[in-house]
C-alpha cells in the first residue's frame, strides 16, 4: 500500500512517458492463458490480471492508475493505436497484433482483442483488452507492415501528419486487398480461420 500512496501523491507521474529502454529480449506466455486488463474512458488502467502482471513485470500497485501506454513499445506504429482508439470509441471491437514493453525492457507479442465495456444503459464506461499468444504465421507479415508504418511516420515533419500518412498507408493496403481491417487482421493467420472449421 505504501507504493500506491506514493504514486497517487506524485500526480505528474500519471502522464509521464515511461523511460524503459528496450532490451530486444522476447518473453512469452502460455497458449492457454489470457492477458487481461481494463481501463477507464481515458485509458487509465483499472485492472490487470495475474498473467499481465507476470509477463509485464509490473506489480498491481505499480500498474493500477497508470496510463495503459506505460507498456507501449517504440516499434509500435502510432497509426495502429489511433485505429484502435477510433474503433473502440465508435463502440466496435478490434483485433490487433501488438508488441508490448515489459518493465525491464523485454518485449512480448500479443494478439489483442479490445472492446468497449458498456453499462446496463448501453453507455461506454471503459475498455477491456484480452490478449492471446499471437499466431506465429502472422508475425513476419505484421513486423514488416509495422516497420513500413513506422518508417512512414518518421518521414513526416510532425506527429499530426505522421498519423495522417500512416492512416493513408493502412487504407491503401486494405484497398489493395479489397477488405476491411477486421477481415485483414483475420487473414494474417491460417489459424484464425481454422478455429472456424474445428
Amino acid at each position, binding site marked *: 500500500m505504501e507504493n500506491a500512496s506514493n504514486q497517487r501523491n506524485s500526480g505528474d507521474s500519471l502522464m509521464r512517458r515511461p523511460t524503459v529502454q528496450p532490451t530486444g529480449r522476447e518473453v512469452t506466455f502460455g497458449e492457454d492463458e*489470457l492477458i487481461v486488463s481494463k481501463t477507464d474512458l481515458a485509458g487509465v488502467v483499472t485492472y490487470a*490480471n495475474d498473467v499481465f502482471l507476470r509477463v509485464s513485470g509490473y*506489480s498491481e500497485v505499480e500498474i493500477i492508475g497508470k496510463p495503459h501506454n506505460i507498456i507501449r513499445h517504440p516499434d509500435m506504429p502510432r497509426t495502429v493505436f489511433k485505429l484502435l482508439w477510433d474503433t473502440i470509441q465508435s463502440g466496435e471491437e478490434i483485433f490487433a497484433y501488438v508488441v508490448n514493453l515489459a518493465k525491464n525492457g523485454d518485449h512480448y507479442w500479443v494478439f489483442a482483442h479490445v472492446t468497449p465495456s458498456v453499462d446496463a444503459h448501453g453507455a461506454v464506461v471503459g475498455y*477491456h483488452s*484480452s490478449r492471446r*499468444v499471437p499466431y506465429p504465421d502472422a508475425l513476419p507479415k505484421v513486423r514488416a507492415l509495422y516497420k513500413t508504418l513506422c518508417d512512414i511516420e518518421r518521414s513526416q515533419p510532425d506527429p499530426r501528419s505522421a498519423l495522417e500518412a500512416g492512416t493513408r498507408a493502412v487504407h491503401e493496403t486494405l484497398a489493395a486487398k479489397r477488405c476491411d481491417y477486421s477481415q485483414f487482421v483475420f487473414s494474417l493467420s491460417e489459424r*484464425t*480461420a481454422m478455429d472456424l472449421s474445428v
Partner: protein
Amino acid sequence: MSTPDLTPVDATGSTDTVTLSRADLQRITDACDRAAAGEFEARIVGLASHPSLSGLARSINQLLDLSDAFVREAAAAMRQCGSDRFHRPVLLRGMPGAFRHSARTINQAGRKMRQSSESLSYVATLAAENATNVSSVAAACEELNASGTEIARQAQDSSKQGHEVVETVGAAEGAVRQLSDAAEKVGRIIRVITTIAEQTHMLALNATIEAARAGEAGRGFAVVAREVKELSRNAAEATDQIVKQVERMHANVDEVVGHIKSVDAAVEHMAQSASAISQSVSEQVAATREISANIASVTQNSQQVSRSIGSVKGSDGTESAA
C-alpha cells in the same frame, strides 16, 4: 473494524486461520453478486499481494475474465454473422473447457450460416439471371405475337384475293363456253348453207339438161345455168373454209377451257393454303399469348424470390442493435 475469521481446510486436513477485513469481504461479495447478475465488469483489485487472499482474488478474477472474454467474443462473432460477415470465429485459444466447447458450437453455427448465405447469394444470382432471361423471352414473345398477327392478316388477304380470282376465272369460263355455243350455232347455219348450195347445184344441173333439150332457144338459159353452177361451187368452197375455221375455234376454246380449269385449281389450292396458314398462325398467336401469360407469372415469382432473398440478406445491423 472487526475481522471475521475464515477457517479453510487444506489438502492435508490441517486448518489455519485467515483474517480479512469486512471491507475486503464486502468487495469480494460485491464482485460475485454483480457477476451473478450477469455483469462482468467488477474485479477484485488490491489484494494481489495480500498474504492469504491473493489466491482467492486471482481465482475469482480469472473466472470473471474468462466469462467476460467469452461473452464479448461470442456476441461479437454472432453480430458479424448477423451482418453476413463470416471471417471472425470465436478464437479458441485461451478458452478452456465449457467455454471452448461453446465457442466451437458457435463457430460451427457460423460456418453453417456462411454456407446458407453463400447458397442464398447463388440463388439470388440465378434469380437475377432468370429475371433477365425471362424479360428477353417476354420481349421475343411480344415480337412473335406482332409478326404472327401480321402474317395472319396477310394470309386472310391472300385467301380473300384467291376467292375473288376463283370467281373471275369462273366468269371467264362462262364467257368461253358462250363462245363455244356461238360456234356451234355457226356450224348449224353452215350446214343449212351447204344444203342450199348442193340443192342449187342440182338445180343448175337440171337447168343445163333442160336448156340442152330446148336447143337453140335454151342457149341463153344454158349460160345462166352455168353461172349458177359456178356460184354454188363457190358457196360450197366458202362453207368448207368456214367449217374448218369453226373447227379450229372449237379446238382453241377447248384449250382455253383447259387452261382456265388449271388456273382455277391452282388458285383454289392457293386459297386453301392461305386459309391453312391463317389458321396455323392464329393458333401460334394464341400459344404465344399463353406463353406470355406464363412468363408474367414466372417474372412475378422471380421478383418474389429476389425480394425474399433481399429481405433475408438485408436484416443485419438494425436487428442486432436491438
